């Protein structure tokens, strides 16, 4: 076995966003030895970008309860969400908010001192009735507040951090137990074997597979691809949420809060277009409904601008004071990136890739589950996943705004609780398989050799991949476009085998990191476009022009894509824990 530095912990957590840090804190507080690996400094994780807030039925502003929240989430998921996991999450939500408050998150208040809650898309009272107000926020920096509070708590609890270490691959033994990961220090390229009795993947989403995205550059789906390479199929990857209100041509997000506060979309004729698509909820309809509406307006020639390629978000009628008070940040974003002031001029808008609903399949205890013979969900011993990289599945075909911060803390905590039980039953480290370590090491060493031949550069291949995914696998999809897209992605994967980097140094070799990230993007892109091609219906964020209806008879099932065997499927868990199922209904807002 290669002679490399080794470190041993009870539990390894890959990813220091809200999901990873919530799990780490639970484990450290339970006296487990915990290592957290993060490729960027923890408080620079993508959770920091979440502005809008986190859902919980606290009923502080309007009447509410967890059962209504559950109904909205099931309906929002277009009936692809697992109802046991959704019940668990919605019931746990108020407690999750109070815990965060206890850790130091300064949630915004109402005059009576209780937590302020804003209305978000897809929220209703009384199972589909009037608009609810369910989203708790710390001004417009909820993610930042959560991340910093959890990080401070982890420092206090003595969690061990490997900052700016890049995790390469999972390590296993011959029986298939996952026993940690190979990582390297980005500063000097030194590899380290981190051995652990349990490993939790919490590496976040993969928006970087698309050209226009709200996601930071770090969101390259590393954990998802690590799971794929370890033989775990990815679930429901065709469901990628496009946020309806991205700044056209740039990708940055204009929070849903802008519409919550009274902003609305207009087309080239100045028409308030959402009245036609969602007569009741209008601009606060679910995200996929709004995204598709914008794309339809543009396709049908009612787009704005010289190229008629976007619509406009109108905020100027709210007045400068409201914009400044309730939506700080948005105004400056527009001034900085577009040179326009939304208090005077509408903002050019187009859907932008925002959230990965699919991911590593888990049960509601965070255990990664795979089909084995006739069992659709057999836990992989020692392997857990939580946060955006996981698919529990609480978001199904479409996530509701404010449900992701909730998901990451609820299931980060749940996974940690299960890990604590697992550690009690598995007290000793098992022996790593040499082959598993060798192959992880080879993936890194491939880029260490001096550049040979004239292979293509990483930047060229990455840009091409992102363009192909945008043109062939975004808001509108049909057979021809997807078939062509699959072929193009597969050709790019072939070309990547001969790619080169020009930097073979050890110190701060970011070219090598980018090459490894691109390999991960390819894994996620393959899973996404193959799953989209295979699903012959429209459901939630997956909208097919050639199969416009939802087809519950044939397609109310989860997709699974694996590198070895391609597509497979498993049933949706329609039975909640303690209440009646919500049977599928047409999803109208």
């Amino acid at each position, binding site marked *: 076995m290669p002679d490399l530095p080794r470190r041993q912990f009870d539990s390894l957590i890959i990813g220091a966003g809200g999901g990873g840090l919530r799990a780490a804190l639970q484990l450290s507080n339970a006296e487990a030895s915990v290592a957290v690996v993060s490729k960027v400094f923890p408080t*620079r994780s993508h959770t920091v970008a979440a502005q809008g807030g986190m859902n919980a039925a606290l009923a502080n502003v309007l009447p509410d309860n967890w059962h209504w929240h559950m109904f909205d989430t099931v309906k929002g998921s277009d009936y692809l969400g697992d109802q046991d996991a959704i019940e668990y999450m919605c019931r746990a939500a108020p407690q999750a908010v109070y815990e965060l408050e206890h850790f130091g998150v300064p949630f915004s208040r109402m005059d009576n001192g209780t937590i302020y809650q804003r209305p978000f898309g897809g929220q209703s009272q009384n199972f589909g009735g009037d608009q609810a107000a369910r989203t708790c926020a710390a001004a417009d920096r909820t993610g930042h507040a959560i991340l910093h509070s959890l990080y401070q708590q982890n420092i206090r609890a003595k969690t061990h951090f490997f900052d700016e270490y890049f995790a390469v691959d999972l390590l296993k033994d011959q029986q298939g137990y996952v026993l940690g990961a190979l990582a390297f220090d980005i500063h000097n390229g030194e590899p380290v074997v981190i051995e652990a009795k349990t490993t939790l993947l919490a590496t976040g989403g993969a928006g970087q597979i698309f050209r226009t995205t709200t996601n930071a*550059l770090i969101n390259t789906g590393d954990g998802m691809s690590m799971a794929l390479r370890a033989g775990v199929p990815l679930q429901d990857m065709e469901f990628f949420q496009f946020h309806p209100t991205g700044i056209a041509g740039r990708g940055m997000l204009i929070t849903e809060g802008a519409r919550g506060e009274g902003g609305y979309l207009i087309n080239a004729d100045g028409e308030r277009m959402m009245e036609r698509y969602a007569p009741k909820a209008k601009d606060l309809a679910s995200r996929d409904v709004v995204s598709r509406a914008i794309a339809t307006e543009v396709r049908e020639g009612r787009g704005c601008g010289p190229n008629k390629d976007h619509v406009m978000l109108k905020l100027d009628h709210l007045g400068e004071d409201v914009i400044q008070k309730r939506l700080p940040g948005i105004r*400056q974003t527009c001034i900085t*990136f577009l040179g326009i002031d939304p208090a005077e001029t509408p903002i050019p808008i187009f859907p932008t890739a925002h959230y990965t609903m699919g991911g590593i399949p888990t049960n509601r205890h965070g255990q990664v589950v795979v089909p084995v013979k006739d069992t659709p969900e057999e836990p992989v011993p020692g392997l857990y996943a939580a946060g955006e990289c996981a698919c529990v599945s609480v978001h199904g075909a479409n996530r509701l705004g404010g449900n992701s911060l909730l998901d990451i803390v609820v299931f980060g905590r749940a996974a940690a609780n299960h890990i604590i039980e697992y550690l009690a039953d598995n007290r000793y480290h098992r022996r790593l398989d040499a082959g598993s370590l060798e192959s992880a090491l080879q993936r890194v060493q491939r880029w260490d050799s001096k550049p040979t031949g004239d292979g293509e550069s990483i930047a060229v291949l990455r840009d091409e991949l992102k363009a192909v995914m945008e043109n062939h696998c975004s808001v509108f999809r049909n057979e021809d476009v997807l078939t062509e897209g699959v072929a193009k992605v597969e050709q790019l994967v072939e070309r990547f085998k001969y790619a080169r980097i020009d*930097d073979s*140094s050890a*110190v*701060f070799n970011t070219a090598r990191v980018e090459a490894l990230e691109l390999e991960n993007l390819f894994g996620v892109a393959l899973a996404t476009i193959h799953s989209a091609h295979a699903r012959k219906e429209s459901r939630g964020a997956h909208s097919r022009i050639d199969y416009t209806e939802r087809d519950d008879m044939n397609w109310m099932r989860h997709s699974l894509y694996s590198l070895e065997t391609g597509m497979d499927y498993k049933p949706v868990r329609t039975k909640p824990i303690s209440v009646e199922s919500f049977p599928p209904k047409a999803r109208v807002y």
Partner: protein
Amino acid sequence: MSSAGIEFAELKWRCRRGMLELDILLNTYLEKHRETMSQHQRAVFSEMLEYPDQVLLDLLLSNMRSSKAEINSLITEIQRAQVSTASET
């Protein structure tokens, strides 16, 4: 790699942030000025990167000013680099 090359690579990695807005602003500036930045300018840039993401965003979106004049000038430079790129595209 030369020591200047290493320093640049390190700065580039530290421009990887949790927010797309920061990725775009910081990388646009760094790529534009990598050849011409003096040792001192690199040091100021590095100091600025110490700010937490949310604070850095507030500085770059002019919601806040740093107590250091040098950092404020740098922020203005970064904003300028962005606006000139925006008008190029």
